[in-house]
């Protein structure tokens, strides 16, 4: 249910009940906030790319494909 709520896919009556519960329950409030913060950290993890060599290989593959295919203009 927490997942649905965060996704925004809980139907309105259920979402309302969920929010009413959260308002009165410190444990669930804390838990929900901690899930949100966890997602926040996940969304900011470093992201390494392919190296230059890898990229050059791929660009060469594209080039050669286009050249092979361009016989008919």
């Amino acid at each position, binding site marked *: 249910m927490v997942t649905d709520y965060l996704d925004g896919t809980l139907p309105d009556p259920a979402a309302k009940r969920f929010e009413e519960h959260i308002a009165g329950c410190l444990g669930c409030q804390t*838990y929900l906030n901690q899930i949100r913060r966890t997602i926040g950290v996940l969304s900011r993890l470093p992201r390494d790319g392919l190296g230059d060599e890898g990229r050059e290989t*791929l660009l060469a593959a594209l080039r050669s494909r286009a050249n092979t295919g361009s016989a008919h203009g």
Partner: protein
Amino acid sequence: MTALGPASRGSFGRAGARLSTLDVVAADPPVQRPADASIVARLRAGDETLFAGLIAAWSPGMLRTARCYVDAYAAEDVVQEAWLAVIAGLDRFEGRSSLRTWAYQIMIKIARARGRRDARSVPAGSLSEDGPSVDGGLFFSGGPYAGHWRSLPAPWRQPEDSAVDAETRAQVEAALDRLPERQRAVIVLRDVEGHNSDDVCRILQITAQNQRVLLHRARAAVRAALANYLEGR
């Protein structure tokens, strides 16, 4: 959360390019995608600037997702192979899903096959993938307090708006490494890479229900690991 993720800020939209790669890679609408058709046409024509932009934008996410199935070295191979397969298969792209989802589907197939081939040792966590939710122990399951918190989750010692330090990120990375494969793939695609749930279901070939359960368990496990680290001082 855009599909790119906040860390991806390449030099997109070079002079002369009618289409900004950023526009294309960030948008993933479920309706007809003229932008994708235009990209495919330009790739077929050999547009290396555009291709370099796609590689820069999508490879980080593809690498991280591949890491759910193979080690870091193999992940580079997998993503490289995936891009080559994308180029080779351009004529077969039908536009039923977005170009990015299609590229990810190709990558996942290669990653899984490579994972099986490399026969990674299965971490202990994988065995309990279909068991009860990791949250089970947080609540009383019976008695007069059934459904109530056994003890309240302790507040975390870092204030909410503080910058996330390297050690916190390392804890989260370690928690991701310990997740069963399918939970890890879902949480990486959803929360690290920002794909929406429909695309994740298409990429991993799972039902919406599966996706929800896997995501919930994965988030609960990573939260628990963070809680352990942040409360434990």
